[in-house]
Every structure is written in C-alpha cells, then in structure tokens.
C-alpha cells in the first residue's frame, strides 16, 4: 500500500505551528516514515502530484488566497487546519475591528492601494475543514495524536470542556484569586493549561468551547472585578472572528 501523501501549506500566520512540527525532531522522522510529504511551504500549482491530507496553517486574509485554499480543498481528501490562525482566525482578526481603510493607510501610507486585504477569517469560513489542531502554537503531542487518528481513519478527539479542567489537573493556583484575568473558563481545553503553568494566564488561543456559558463566565469574572468590556477585548485577541460572525 502506498503511503498517504501529505502536503503542508501556509497562509497568513507566523509559521510557529510548522516549527512545532519540525520540533518533533526524531518523532517527525518517525511520522514522516509513515507518510510521504509531497509539498511543504508553498502551493505547487504546476504539480500534477495529488495529496491525501492537506495541513493548513494561517488565516485567509485576501481574495486571492481564497482561490488558493479552494484549489487545495479540491485536491485534498482530508483538510486539517493547524493553529489558531487557521482554526478560529486567531490574532489576525484583531484588525477586523478597525476601519479597513485606516488600517491600510496606517501601515502603508499613501501606497495603501497597492496592497489588498480583507477581514481575516479562519479556513473553515472559506472551505469545509475536516479536523482542527487548536492552539497558538499547536501542541506537538496533540498534533501527532490527531494525525495518527486521521491516518487510521478515526475521528480525532478534541476536548470540548474548558481549560479550567486542565488547569485543575495541572495543580495550578487559579490566577483569578490573584486578581488576574483568565480566559480559561470559556476556552477549549487540550493544552494542559500550559500558559498558566508557566506563570501567565489563559489568553484564549484555542477558541471558545462549543457552547460557552457566557452568563456564568460573566458572573464569575464579575465576581473578580472584571468587566464585560474587558472580557470582550480578551475574546477579540484570538476569537474575534466568531464574535464578529454572531
């Protein structure tokens, strides 16, 4: 049986997720042993090669990129979004809340008209996505687990409970008690609450759980003196696209 063919593509993002794949070191050779990487880093338009699995990093931020992702979708049996930029729009969506003309002028001045852009969006807003590997950046172990499941024809397990569960398991002291904000109560778990373990708080990079109990979250955060406005600002750090789409 021939090995499944995997292609990796990137759109607007920082390549941190691709770096996580490289950082698997020997494991990557192991995984690579079971698949054949046919494209990594750019759309090989001219290639007659087909691929079974497309891994896509980054948000869609231009009309021209829509065509590229649609072509990828057509060729791929399975399309996996990797990283917050691709799964939920990620930090790129912060610019969606500002006037687009202003944004372009602010960065490119009187040459603004040379550069096209539109509101950033996740891959799923343009083409159907079969699986998500969440995070900013992705978690290496989770990536391998999702890829393995897909290779076996199984549906990968993606948690749909809040980071607070991971956080309790990690034995962290809740940062709310220290008067700090945290997105943990409404953010999808699966990262092991790594940011809190490393001394920060949860910024919400894995996106909201499917049915976030916003009333309870508001009430909880309110109890610690955090306003709804502040919470909204935090949601817009990563999950602005969802907020915008509502």
């Amino acid at each position, binding site marked *: 049986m021939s090995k499944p063919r995997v292609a990796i593509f990137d759109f607007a993002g920082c*390549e*941190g997720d691709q770096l996580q794949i490289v950082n698997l070191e020997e494991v990557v050779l192991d995984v690579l042993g079971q698949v054949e990487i046919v494209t990594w880093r*750019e759309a090989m338009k001219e290639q007659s090669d087909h691929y079974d699995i497309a891994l896509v990093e980054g948000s869609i931020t231009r009309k021209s990129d829509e065509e590229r992702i649609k072509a990828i979708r057509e060729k791929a049996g399975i399309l996996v979004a990797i990283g917050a930029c691709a799964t939920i729009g990620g930090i790129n969506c912060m*610019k969606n809340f500002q006037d687009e003309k202003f944004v372009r002028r*602010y960065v490119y001045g009187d040459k603004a008209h*040379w550069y096209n852009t539109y509101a950033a969006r996740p891959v799923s807003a343009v083409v159907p996505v079969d699986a998500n590997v969440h995070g900013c950046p992705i978690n290496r172990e989770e990536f391998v687990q999702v890829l393995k499941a897909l290779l076996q024809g199984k549906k990968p397990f993606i948690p749909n409970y809040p980071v607070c569960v991971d956080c309790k398991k990690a034995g962290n002291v809740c940062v709310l008690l220290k008067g700090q904000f945290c997105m943990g109560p409404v953010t999808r778990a699966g990262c092991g609450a790594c940011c809190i373990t490393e*001394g920060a708080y949860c910024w919400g990079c894995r996106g909201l759980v499917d049915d976030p109990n916003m009333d309870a979250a508001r009430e909880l955060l309110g109890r610690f003196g955090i306003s709804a406005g502040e919470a909204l600002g935090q949601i817009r750090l990563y999950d602005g696209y969802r907020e915008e789409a509502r």
Partner: protein
Amino acid sequence: MSKSAKRELHIRVDHLTRVEGHGNIVVNVSNGKIEDCRWEVVEAPRFFEAMVRGRKWYEMHHITCRICGICSIGHTLASLQATEAALGIEVSEQTVLLRKLALHAENLQSHILHVGYLVLPDLMGVGSVVPLAGSHPAELKTVIRIHRLSNEFSDTICGRTTHPQRLVPGGFVKYPKVDELKKLRQGLTEALSDLKEVARLVCSLAERFPAFSRETEYIALKSNQEYAMYHGQVGSSDGGTWAPGQYKEVTNEFCVPHSTAKYTKHNRDSYMVGALARFNLNSDRLTPEARAVAGLFKLKPVCYNSFMNNVAQIVECVHSVEDSINIIDRALGRGLALEDIPPIKVCAGRGVSAVEVPRGILFHDYQYDDAGTCIGANLIIPTNQNHNNIYHDLQALLPSLLGKPEKEIELGLEMLVRAYDPCISCSAHYLKVKFKK
C-alpha cells in the same frame, strides 16, 4: 561567441522559501540581455502595527511575538524593552542575564535549523534533509542533537520554545531551577564539540559557496561591553552609531509595488542585517572558540560575500553556546533569586527598542496613552531590511551565472536567497522554478 551572448532565460521561482513570507524570483533574459531580475515578496500583509492599537501594555509582547514563530523570543524581548522604556520600568541584573540566555537559545535554534536542515543539503547536492538520513546518518543525528538541545534551552528559560510565557514587562513570572540550569550547562558543553564537528563538515564543503562579492553596508547593534545582541547602539560598517530611538535615520522605509514588505536603505542602495552584519561589526568581541571557527573558514571582517552569512551563523552558534555557559556561571554564582516584578506605574509615553534576533536587527517602537493603551506602533523586522539587499545581490550575481546551465543558475539564485536565512522548511524541496522556453 560565448554561450551567454544570446541567452534566452525566463525564470520564475514562485513562492520561494518563505523569507518572513512568500517570495518569488523572477528572471527574464532575452538575447543575452537581462530585462528583469526581481525579488518579489507576495506574503499576505498582516498589519500588526494597526492591530496592536487599542491593546494594553501587558498584551503587547504576547501579540507582537506572533509576527514570527521562529524569532518569537526576540520579538518578545524587543517588545518588552520598548514597553519598559515607555513606562520607565527598570529590570534587575538577573532578568537581563536570563533574557540574554533566552536570546542565545533562539539564536542557536534558528541558526542550526537553517545551516543543518537547509544549507547542508544544498552543499551536499541533495534536494532536502531527508536523503541525508540514509547517506549521512551520523552527521544528521549531530544536527538533530544540537537542535533538540536548543529547544530544551528555550524550554528551560522561557517555558516554551515558541511564544514564550514566562517573560513579561519587568522580568520573569517563573524561573528555571538551579538543577535545570546545571543540566543545561552540561548539555551546552557537549554541544560545543558537536558544533565544531558541524563546522568542520561545512568547511570541507565550503568551496560550494560561490566566490561572490558585492560591497554593501552592514547594520547591526554595537556595544562596548560585548558582542551586542540584547542591547547596544545601532552601528554601520560605513561608520557611525545611532541610539535605538534614532532608528528611522537608518532604516528609511519605503514601499515598492512588487513587495508587501517595505524596503529600507541607508548610505547606499541597500544594506544587510543578520549574522554576517553582526560578524562584520563585532567579530573582535566573539568568544575564543567562535573566533577559532571563523579562522577555520578564513572569515574576516569586512566580508562582502552574502553566502558567507551561513558561515557567520555557524560562528554565532558557537558564540551563543560559549557565552551562554559563561552567563549560566554568572547567574549560578550570584545565586538564583525569586524576584518580584517591580511595581509598574502606568503612564503615557513612547519607547523604542533595538534587539538582534537571528536574522538581524529588530526595532519595536510603541506609544502609550496614560491608561497604558497602545496608540501607535512601528515595527521594523530584519528580513524586511534585507529584501532590498537581496534584490541588489540578485542583480549582481545573475550576470556571472549566465554562461552556466539552467540548473546551476537556478541553484545559485536559490542559494543566494537562502543564505539570508529563509525560514524553516526542513524536509521538502519547496522551490518552484519555472523556465519558459
């Protein structure tokens, strides 16, 4: 008549290795005359400077480090320094030591990734790192060993290899343990001999680097105390230094229609930043072993061969390892203390920073209102400063290649752009070169 006299050549390299983005090489030669030789950057613009407007001072490093996954530590440090300058925050000596370690970890990680996974296959005449697993397993394992160590290095100091969480304005929110630092020191000592092995290997293949030379200006941080990475003055190989706050006098950004990344220029048509620029300005401050490796390659300042940036990266790997061992000794010698973040008084202000990241000098410039909300930002990343120099290098290199077979021209152009350190991409042959006949 020479073969090049009536040469017809139309090259289009679509989406070359991402040099902080997607780039294309476009070459058109008609009847032996170069009609077009362009380096296009077609990456989707991300508008960070506009995005951070309205965000709070304590989020800035978290957001701006997402500009680049490969130098996220460098962006974090540049961001923290800019915020600290704006809000008047003083950090402790221990914080500076740990931050310098973080920067070395990233420098080592990024350089070894580039040299080991990208340049080495070129020099060995294969398309990617994958065939090396069969033909040169020992060498590849050495590279992987150094790469893994560099990631453990980042983990130990920053808590994560990409987008660190422990580094915040004012200092650290979590510290490495003494045992972890000792273990790291041991690993770094062992890596020194691994690195020298890699250096010898590359040296044995060094004749594959073209004997290219084009005089240009080199811009890098300079300091009286050390091989400047974490802080210093902005220096030029043409002479002169500027305070980070005067960066605009050096960078002079401008737009060109075929590139979404802005170009820069200073004294000449273009300037170069990165490992070779740092070496050219600061080689006398390298650690002894690093200087010995430079000697192995006969690398001397001022070197005008952009291909030698790859060699300067190897030299810097050794420097980063050796200097890190020294810093760890200092940190352990003075005793690792759990320090509180100093009290921060939020106020209006502007702060500029300049930090050396693997690919060159990086500037962050922020303005805050009195609530600590960002009202203005300017970010100038290294690769953007290099685009214009790549463009001029391509123009200079192409004529010397015209008599060669197409495959060699293609490889020469690819290697030139790669020498500037075009991002990750370890296994696939990702270049798409098209010759239209």
